[in-house]
């Protein structure tokens, strides 16, 4: 690599980094949406109302069965077709959030199963309402159990934001495409992009893991601790 190469890279690096500035918030927002949807979808499984359970089931199955890229196209083009023109990033966030929530919902359901059913009894005899038991008793315990797996989902989401380049969103991958399109140095541009993804992805995994460790110092004893030990090993 010559000095000229480095100078050239230094020339477009700021543009790539501006793409990072889009990629990171998009990942965070899409993951937040994904987590909320997945939680609701997982909860439908326990609804007393059959239609609610059915809708939840159908959503989870469809979301899990369809490729992210198709979902991105659908949200972007089809909604435009029926007159709803969403900015590329908004369409992308919705698409990825909805798409990834299906499988995350299944993970959360596993976490809900791991919480002892007697916790419900305990909440009920104290007069807590269902939503209070969900949000104050059950889900906080689920969160601790599924956090390591959730971290994996977060990284998937981070990577999946690169798909938004197909609808010309100016996130990291979209910016890279633009630069390479004009300077024809595909390997170089995508190589630099690769390194940026690798660094951010790795750093965020390590950071979340650190956070999780601190959070679970007094980790709950769930099902004799078996689940927790398993997750601790994963982490």
């Amino acid at each position, binding site marked *: 690599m010559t000095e000229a190469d480095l100078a050239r890279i230094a020339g477009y690096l700021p543009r790539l980094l501006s793409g990072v500035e889009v990629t990171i918030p998009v990942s965070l927002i899409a993951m937040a949406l994904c987590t909320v949807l997945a939680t609701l979808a997982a909860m439908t499984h326990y609804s007393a109302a059959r239609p609610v359970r059915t809708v939840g089931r159908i959503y989870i199955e469809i979301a899990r069965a369809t490729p992210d890229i198709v979902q991105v196209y659908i949200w972007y083009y089809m909604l435009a077709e029926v007159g709803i023109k969403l900015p590329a990033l908004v369409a992308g966030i919705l698409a990825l959030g909805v798409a990834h929530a299906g499988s995350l919902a299944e993970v959360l359901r596993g976490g809900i199963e791991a919480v002892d059913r007697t916790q419900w009894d305990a909440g009920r005899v104290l007069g807590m309402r269902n939503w209070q038991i969900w949000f104050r*008793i059950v889900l906080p315990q689920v969160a601790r159990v599924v956090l390591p797996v959730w971290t994996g989902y977060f990284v998937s989401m981070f990577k999946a934001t690169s798909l938004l380049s197909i609808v010309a969103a100016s996130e990291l991958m979209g910016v890279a495409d633009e630069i390479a399109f004009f300077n024809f140095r595909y390997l170089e541009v995508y190589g630099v992009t690769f390194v940026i993804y690798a660094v951010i992805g790795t750093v965020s995994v390590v950071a979340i893991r650190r956070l999780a460790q601190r959070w679970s110092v007094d980790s709950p004893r769930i099902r004799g601790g078996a689940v927790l030990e398993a997750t601790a090993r994963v982490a």
Partner: protein
Amino acid sequence: MESITKQFGDVRVLDDVSLDVARGEIVVVIGASGSGKTTLLRCLIGLIEVDAGLIEVDGEPVIDKRPGRTGPAAKVAAEIRRKKLGMVFQSFNLFPHMTALENVIEAPVHVRGIPKRTALAEAEGLLRSVGLFDRKDYYPSHLSGGQQQRVAIARALAMKPELILFDEVTSALDPELTGEVLNVMVDLAKKGQAMIVVTHEMGFARKVADRVVFIDGGRILEQGRPEQVLESPQHRRTQQFLSRVLHLASQRGLIEESDPPATAATADDSGLGQPPL
């Protein structure tokens, strides 16, 4: 609490059981595994639906499934139960992601809606009364079974129930931890707390019960003063049950007339073929 009657559907787990508990009364329910003791408590507090019968709490119906009657709305019933009834479980069921103190204030703050500061003060007092003030910031996983159960009792008390249901609360504990939990219950009894206690602790029954109820096959076969039921049971099934309990205890050479709680604890520990739950 008045006039509690109920019946259970096809499988008669509870078969036309009637039970009145007076204010401040301590009723101990005994009987073999599967006799319906736990079901009785769970019906009372509303964890299980009954199929027929009437349950009244303080004169107000919470379930009325007598022929031709409709009970109160579920919300109303839940509200009455919340205000008047509490329950402590065999397996403690503390919230594992909360400290002892957080466990105790959870329902007062979020169900009774009292200010957090008041709840904290009350909870600290309750934890002190069960001898666990110094453990208030411990998570359940860092407490022994006996300590967890005492926190669970404090948690139930924090809702100021008029009647507390104890469901085999010492059955999951090692014998040496049983005493500390029973002592807390004896203290409560002295303060006039009404309770229905499902237990195998005959010593506890003898010491604090106002009334002992023997349940068998979902029916109340016999009830009366503890000395009456425990020492001169009228019903054959009661005699069988009690002799089995005492036999198991004496077999292990652990029976001591002078120390009933220890006796009962070991009697329980020795089995009766009682699996947890």
